[in-house]
């Protein structure tokens, strides 16, 4: 009689402890996933700002450098890809493509002294480089959130439950090799 009661109490306590653990785990996973989403919107805002500057930039450059059609096309194409990108991975790819296209555009601009001296162009260039810095910082924040979220759903025992609750890994927002090299160079210069 007493032993049975004890067994029941132990089982009840165990069930409660496990239920509490699952409850806590679920909430913390939801919280982490929201943080990833929230920090993604931080990147997204900057990507949108960047792509909204492009038409203006292209128009400005066109005014001086009329014969560089290919360059303009590449930039416009990359912008369209960026605007239609749905997830982190494709957005990162499109953004890297746009970075490359802009690099050629600015290289071309070097050949047009009048364009380089134009106030509008300098303003746009400054704004773009500011946005690029912001993207880099937003990426740092996003990636650190993704790292902690992905770790949380993969460690034991969370891994046993995360999948069945529908928590899947998030993608990192990665920079191109070129961009990483750029950062290194700019450090050495300073």
């Amino acid at each position, binding site marked *: 009689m007493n032993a049975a009661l004890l067994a029941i109490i132990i089982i009840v306590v165990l069930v409660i402890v496990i239920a509490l653990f699952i409850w806590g785990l679920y909430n913390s996973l939801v919280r982490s996933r929201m943080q990833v989403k929230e920090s993604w919107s931080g990147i997204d805002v*900057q990507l949108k700002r960047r792509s909204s500057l492009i038409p203006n930039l292209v128009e400005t450059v066109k005014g001086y450098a009329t014969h560089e059609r290919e360059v303009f096309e590449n930039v416009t194409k990359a912008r369209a890809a960026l605007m239609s990108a749905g997830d982190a991975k494709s957005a990162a790819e499109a953004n890297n493509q746009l970075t490359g296209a802009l690099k050629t555009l600015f290289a071309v601009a070097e050949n047009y002294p009048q364009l380089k001296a134009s106030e509008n162009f300098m303003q746009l260039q400054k704004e773009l480089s500011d946005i690029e810095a*912001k993207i880099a910082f*937003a990426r740092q*924040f996003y990636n650190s959130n993704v790292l902690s979220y992905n770790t949380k759903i993969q460690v034991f025992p969370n891994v046993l439950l995360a999948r069945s609750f529908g928590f899947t890994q998030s993608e990192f927002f990665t920079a191109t090799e070129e961009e990483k090299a750029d950062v290194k160079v700019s450090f050495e210069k*300073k």
Partner: protein
Amino acid sequence: MVLFVVFVAAVVELIALALGGGYIAGIIVLIFAGIFVTISYYSSSSMVLGISQAREVKHDENPDLYNVVENLCIGSGMPVPKIYIINDTAPNAFATGRDPQHATIAVTSGLLQKLDKLELEGVIAHELSHIKNYDIRLMTLVVVLVGLVALLADFMLRFTFFGSGRRPSNRGRGEGLGGALILIIALVAAILAPIAAQLIKLAISRGREYLADSSGALLTRYPEGLARALEKISADKEPLEVANKATEHLYITNPLKGHKSWANNLFSTHPPIDERIRRLRAM
């Protein structure tokens, strides 16, 4: 921190008891202390900024500074604090406020002139870490409570010297001895409490500086920037005119450049700069 609040409450209570007023006076003193703490807590950041003669800057007035702050905020996922500039050629900076939503970061114009962008980023990241780690709230509370203890202790000392002479005669015989004992304890407490409170403030402050250094470096991913900034700031011999004993612990490095001695080390609000730089370089 909780211990500290209990400690302050106990000192308040003891002082009230010693003043001969029993529990009712104690409660009254506690209520007044509570009002004092609440008001100071909510107005301390504007008081500090007022004392330091800081002036708010918007994005268009100084876009470079604003962008550095904004970018680092994006990197750590916190709201952009208000930015103030102190018109002083001594390079220094501090953060104040209650939480990341009500935070302010202040830099001197000397800091903006003397540091390059990477060094400025290091300093700003250090200050933002103070905000993110809620050090600003902690320091605000500590300052308010230390101020309260000092105020009450001062009050108590004056009261005992000038007002207590005739009190024992008004009382019964048995109470006289107990009252005198409490009086002595309270007197000792009144002398020791400000010193103890001060030491607690220093200990909290120094530990927090190392923490902010390392979390700042994590944010910029470039500890060398802050290390170089600290070198520059400490090499600068100019004292900050608007800083005083009450606000010194807020700054990134001690703004009152005193002579060095072991006592200075014990009572310093900041860990030695060399040690901070060494730890940053070791990252």
